C-alpha cells in the first residue's frame, strides 16, 4: 500500500510540475527533436489544454451520469419494466461501437469543434454507467428490499435510503470506466478541432516531432491513470462501509 501511495503522489507531482513549468523539462525532450524543432509544445499553453481536456471529459461524464442513473432507475421500477430487456440489449450492442466511430459519426451531424466531442463522450459514457446502475439496482439482496418495504418505507424512501446506497459502488465503477474511456476519446476529439491534449499529439504526428507526441501521450496517460486511481480509492473508501456478503 505504502509504495503505491508514494508512486501516486510522485505521478501527481510530476504531472503538475510539468504542466506549470513545461520549459524546465526541455532538456529531457531535446534529444527527441531534429533540425532544431522546439522540444516543448509551443502552439498553445499546455496547462490550459490539459484543463480544457479535463473539463470536456468531466462535463460529459457528469451529464451521462445524470441521464444514465435516471434511466437506470426508471427501467428497474415496476412501471418501466417493459423497457428493461431492450435497454440491456442496447447497452450490449452499444458497447461494441468503438468510441472513435461514435465521434466520427457525430461530426457530420453537429459540425466540427467541441460539440461533437462532447456529444460523443456523453453518448458513449452513458453505457457503462447505465449498465452498472441496472446491475447494481437489480442485485440488491431481495431480503433487504423485502425488509425495507416490510418496515414501512415508501417506494421513494426505499430507493433513496436503501437501493441507491447499495448500488453506489457499482454506479461509481461505471462512472470511473466512463471517465477513463472519455480521457482517451477526447484526445481523438482534437482531430475534429476540439481543444484538448490530442492537439499536442496530432501536432507531433504532423510535424514528425516525437517530443510533442511523447509529452502529449505522457500527460494524457498520467491524467487517465490518476483519474482512474483517484476514483478507485474513493470507491474503496465507500465500499468499506457498504459491504454486502
Amino acid at each position, binding site marked *: 500500500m505504502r509504495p503505491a501511495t508514494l508512486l501516486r503522489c510522485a505521478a501527481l507531482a510530476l504531472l503538475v510540475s510539468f504542466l506549470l513549468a513545461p520549459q524546465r523539462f526541455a532538456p529531457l525532450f531535446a534529444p527527441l527533436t531534429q533540425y532544431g524543432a522546439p522540444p516543448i509544445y509551443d502552439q498553445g499553453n499546455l496547462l490550459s489544454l490539459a484543463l480544457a481536456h479535463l473539463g470536456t471529459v468531466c462535463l460529459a461524464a457528469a451529464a451521462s451520469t445524470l441521464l444514465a442513473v435516471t434511466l437506470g432507475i426508471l427501467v428497474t421500477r415496476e412501471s418501466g419494466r417493459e423497457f428493461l430487456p431492450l435497454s440491456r440489449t442496447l447497452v450490449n450492442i452499444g458497447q461494441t461501437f468503438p468510441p472513435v*466511430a461514435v465521434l466520427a459519426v457525430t461530426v457530420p451531424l453537429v459540425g466540427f469543434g467541441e460539440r461533437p466531442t462532447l456529444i460523443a463522450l456523453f453518448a458513449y459514457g452513458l453505457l457503462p454507467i447505465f449498465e452498472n446502475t441496472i446491475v447494481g439496482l437489480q442485485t440488491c439482496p431481495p431480503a433487504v428490499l423485502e425488509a425495507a418495504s416490510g418496515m414501512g418505507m415508501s417506494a421513494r424512501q426505499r430507493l433513496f435510503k436503501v437501493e441507491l446506497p447499495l448500488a453506489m459502488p457499482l454506479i461509481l465503477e461505471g462512472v470511473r470506466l466512463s471517465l477513463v474511456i472519455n480521457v482517451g476519446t477526447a484526445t481523438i476529439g482534437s482531430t475534429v478541432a476540439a481543444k484538448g491534449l490530442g492537439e499536442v*499529439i496530432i501536432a507531433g*504526428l504532423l510535424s514528425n516531432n516525437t517530443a510533442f507526441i511523447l509529452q502529449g*501521450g505522457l500527460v*494524457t496517460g498520467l491524467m487517465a*491513470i490518476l483519474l482512474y486511481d483517484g476514483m478507485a480509492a474513493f470507491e474503496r473508501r465507500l465500499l468499506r462501509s457498504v459491504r454486502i456478503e
Partner: protein
Amino acid sequence: MTEATLPRTARFDRLGTLLGVTGVAALAGLSFVLVKANRIVPGIPRSLLEAAPPLAGWACLACLALAATAALFVFNARLRLGAALLGIGALLLALGAAGDALTPLGNRVVRISAGPAFWVVLVCLGLMATDAITRMRPGPARRVLWLAGFIAVAVLALKSGRFDHLSVMREYAVNAERFSRELLRHVLLAAGSLGAAALAGLPLGIACYRVPRIREAILGALNVIQTIPAIALFGILMAPLGALAAAVPLAGRLGIRGIGAAPAVVALFLYSLLPIVANTVQGLRRVSRQAVEAARGMGMTPGQVLLRVEMPLALPVIVTGVRVVLVQNIGMVTVAALIGGGGLGTFVFQGIGQTAIDLVLLGAIPIVALAFSAAVVLDALVEVMDRVKQ
C-alpha cells in the same frame, strides 16, 4: 415474490407507441434525403415523397404504416420482428430509389445521402426489431445464423446496384480497391495482436493464478496500461520503436519502424493482455475445488489436472476475455490510422480531414459491423461452451 403482477391493462405497447410517434414525427418534420450538387457544398433537404418516385414513395409509406401499426397493437414478437424488417427493407429500397431518381443520367458529381428522417426512422425500426429479438430469446446457433443471413442479404443488396447512386456507395466506388485492402488490414491488425496476446496471456494468466504473489503486481501493471489512451500509447511507442529501428538495421528491415503498423500492433498487444490474463485467472479460480480434488484423487499429475480439468472448465471465461479483446481491438485499430498503421480508420480520419461525411461512414459502418459480428459470434461460442460444461 414482489408486488402483485398487475394485469396487463395497457392495450397499446408503450415502447411501440414511443417508437411509432418518433418515427412519424421524423418523417413529417425532417428531410429524408440530402441532395448535394457536389461533394463539398451543403445539401438541399428533400422529403420522402419529393425524393423517391411516386410508386416507390407510397409503397414505402404503406410498409412503414404497417410496421407502425404492428409496433402499436401487435404483441407477438415474431410478427413484430417481421413488420420491423419489412419496414427496414422498404426504407432502404426507397432510399436507393431516391438515389436513382435524383441522379441525372451519367452525372458522377451529384451526391445523394440519407437525411435525418431516414436515420431516425431506421433507428426506430432497428429498436423495434431488437426488442422483438430480445423477447424471442434466440439460442446461440440461431443468432449466428441470423447474423450470417443479414450479412448475406446486405452484401447481395449492395452488389445488386440498387444503391449505387448513394453517396456512400460513390465513395466506395472511388476507393473500392483500397477498401478491401484496408478492411483486410484492419482485421489482420485486430486479430494478429489478439493472437499474440493470447499466446503470451494464457501462460501469464496461469502463472498469476498459481503464484498469488505476482498476481497483484502484474494485474496492476496491465490495468495501468489499459487506462492510457490509445493515441497516447501509440505515440509513446513510436519513440522507442523508432530508436530500435535506427540502432538495429535488421529490425528496420523486418518492418519495425517508429510509424506504421509496428507501434499499433505492440500497443494493441499490450491492451489485449489485461482481459486475457484477468479472465484466465478468474476462470481458473472459479473451477470447482471438488473437480480438482477428484482429479488429484484419481492420480493425475499437476500438469494433467491443469490441461484436462482446470483449463477446459475455465475456457468459457477465457473466451469471454477474448471477446472483450477482439471487440476492443477492432475499435482501437481505427486510431492506428493516425500513426500510419492503416486499416479502416484511414477513411474515417481522411473523411474528417476533408469534411466528407460519406468517407467517414465508409470507414465507420464496416468497423461497427465487424465489432458487432465479432461480439455476436463469440457470445454464442461462450454460451455453447457454458451449456456443454453443465
